[in-house]
């Protein structure tokens, strides 16, 4: 915990200095697309640790001054598999965004979709020292949570206090200053593979940038795609991306669960390419232009040119009906949604007061996916587009940019994490000077 605390604190320092300068870039490393946005902050917005969720209405504090996207290379299932390729892609996208913004950025906040996220709910409890809750007590109770043994090679990316309980009163978001005897906290912990973060760190460093924060794409797309009352009353965000499908569950404006299915739009494309014998590029094109999930009788008569460059006339001039295409795409999409269903069941989504499900991500734009999802996930499904942020060009407002925009909002209004609070002194240790100072303060 202490090592993690230090590294996250260091990243937080960098993030704060970037916000002081008023410039930070957010980088969404996706499987099919890489997006970078340069954000300009109003210098007055200070970034103090505060409890409770930041109001979504206040996202006007930053402005997007540069956006660039590029085809992603070297990323599979949301994880970096070829460092050089990824580095080149990051260079392309960062340079494009810098060019548009006409400024140089040094700090980057990145989000990762894959890397096997796992959620843990942890709890901690302390006796209050002097009858009311201080910052110290919150630090103590967060440090006192019994961290599960999540294994070697895993790293915590999010550790958010979700709920505070003071004596018998539960559901507190900010217990500071309240009177009580026992303070307990529920914390949501999200861990991902260390190697994925380290690879990302290395790629970013090779581009002369500094990583000022890491977030999970499941969390950030939920932040941007869910509206405020959905976050409050309970909702799930299913971000169907290129290589992965991220699932996150929100309640009381906090993420309480996050996971990802290792399937996405690229799986659909490769199914088409394999099943209908065509190149990957042609399959992607046909999927985007003619794809769907619900076949009607007219689809039997709508013939699609497959195209090809093999030189074999019969092969290259093939035509398939749209119904055939739907017949290939639908089982894979059902499989993806069933995977999401499985995670939702595991998370206890059934017990939430409201069970709204929001589909977002690039693949969610397949026509008819909404009705397919309502059969698998539940009745209450809608397609979600990310919230509008200032300065964003029209081309970057689609559902494919949900996690990038959510990351920008996360950079502007980070939720309190465990490392935003000072650990109690006895836990850190080795700070005799601070101890002495405290002794002086207490005794004089």
């Amino acid at each position, binding site marked *: 915990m202490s090592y993690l605390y230090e590294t996250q604190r260091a990243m937080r320092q960098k993030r704060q200095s970037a916000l002081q300068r008023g410039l930070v870039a957010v980088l969404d490393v996706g499987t099919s697309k890489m997006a970078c946005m340069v954000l300009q902050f109003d210098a007055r917005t200070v970034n103090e640790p505060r409890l409770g969720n930041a109001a979504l209405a206040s996202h006007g504090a930053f402005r997007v001054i540069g956006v660039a996207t590029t085809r992603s290379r070297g990323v599979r299932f949301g994880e970096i598999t070829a460092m050089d390729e990824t580095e080149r892609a990051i260079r392309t996208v*960062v340079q494009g965004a810098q060019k548009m913004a*006409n400024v140089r950025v040094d700090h980057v906040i990145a989000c990762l979709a894959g890397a096997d996220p796992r959620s843990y709910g942890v709890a901690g409890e302390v006796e209050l020292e002097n009858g009311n809750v201080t910052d110290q007590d919150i630090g103590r109770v967060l440090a006192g949570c019994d961290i599960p043994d999540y294994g070697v090679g895993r790293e915590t990316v999010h550790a958010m206090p979700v709920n505070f309980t003071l004596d018998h009163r539960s559901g507190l978001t900010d217990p500071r200053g309240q009177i009580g005897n026992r303070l307990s906290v529920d914390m949501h912990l999200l861990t991902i593979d260390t190697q994925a973060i380290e690879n990302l760190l290395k790629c970013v460093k090779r581009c*002369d940038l500094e990583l000022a924060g890491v977030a999970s794409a499941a969390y950030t797309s939920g932040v941007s795609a869910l509206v405020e009352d959905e976050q409050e009353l309970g909702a799930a965000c299913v971000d169907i991306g290129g290589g992965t499908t991220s699932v996150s569950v929100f309640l009381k404006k906090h993420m309480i669960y996050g996971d990802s299915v290792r399937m996405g739009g690229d799986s659909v494309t490769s199914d088409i390419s394999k099943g209908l014998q065509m190149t990957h590029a042609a399959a992607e094109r046909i999927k985007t232009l003619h794809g769907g999930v619900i076949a009607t009788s007219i689809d039997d008569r709508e013939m699609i040119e497959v195209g090809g*460059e093999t030189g074999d006339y019969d092969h290259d001039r093939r035509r398939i009906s749209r119904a055939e295409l739907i017949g290939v795409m639908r089982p894979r999409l059902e499989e993806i949604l069933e995977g999401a269903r499985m995670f939702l069941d595991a998370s206890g989504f059934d017990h939430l007061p409201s069970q709204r499900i929001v589909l977002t991500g690039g693949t969610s734009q397949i026509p008819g996916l909404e009705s397919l999802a309502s059969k698998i996930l539940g009745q209450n499904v809608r397609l979600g587009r990310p919230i509008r942020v200032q300065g964003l060009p029209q081309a970057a407002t689609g559902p494919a940019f949900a996690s990038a925009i959510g990351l920008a909002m996360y950079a502007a209004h980070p939720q309190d994490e465990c490392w935003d609070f000072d650990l109690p002194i006895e836990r850190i240790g080795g700070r005799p000077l601070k101890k002495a100072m405290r002794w002086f303060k207490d005794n004089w």
Partner: protein
Amino acid sequence: MQQVDMPTRHDPAPSRVKYKLHRLWLTPFYRALIRTGLPVVCVLIVVLTYLRDPAVQQKIVTSFHNARMTIEQRPEFMVQQMRIQGVSADVDKMVRDSLAVKLPISTFHLDLETMKTNVEKIEAVEAVSILIGAKGILEVGVVMRAPALIWRSQEGLVLLDAQGHKSGRLTSRLDRTDLPLITGAGVQEHTGQALAIFKKLSPVAGRVRGLKRMGERRWDVFLDRDQVLKLPEDQPIAALGRILALHRAQDILNRDITVVDIRDGRKPILRLSDPALDGLKKLRLIASGEDN
């Protein structure tokens, strides 16, 4: 069989060098350096290489001098004549020497302040005004000092004006018999007093040979026949008046007296010459009847 050329997918990624250069270009400091610093340095290099050639330097200096000369020597700025007013012939020569101006000359080369102080160094000159008048005439207006006294000092015969300033030299006393003569050290501050004494002496003007400052504090009046009038330190005029009153009443200065000493201020003490003293003694013996 027809050759099928596969479309090569172009990777839009910038090379690492290009990426770094772009970031450098976006840094405000380097941007300013490249956009303004570099052109300035280039121009400076070109200009300095051109200027390093001695022939070029020579040319620049020559053309500068030529331009300067043409402006200076325009007829509007030239002084053709000099007119010196208010001086005697010998002082005129001295003034010309001290001005040391070779005509014709440009006004840019005339330093009127220095010329003025130079002329004012001449003893006979009390004040001078130098100005460049119309039609290029240098007007030198001189006010001479009026000599009032001749001072026989260690430097020789010096003319003093009424205020005690030196105003010229004499080689011979006979050149200015009209001026009274004084001598002794430290007279320059007391020329007014001396002049007043001379004025007071006007009843015996024909007999006065001169004044001598004694011990830098009081005056002795020398008359002919080696008569000396010793005046006191304070109020010498009044004391002199007393002597002259005595002279008027008793004609003492025409008698056989060598010294009239009125240093006391109230009563004069007379010293007879030796023969007169002998005669007086004889007369007294006769008067007392002890004739030998």
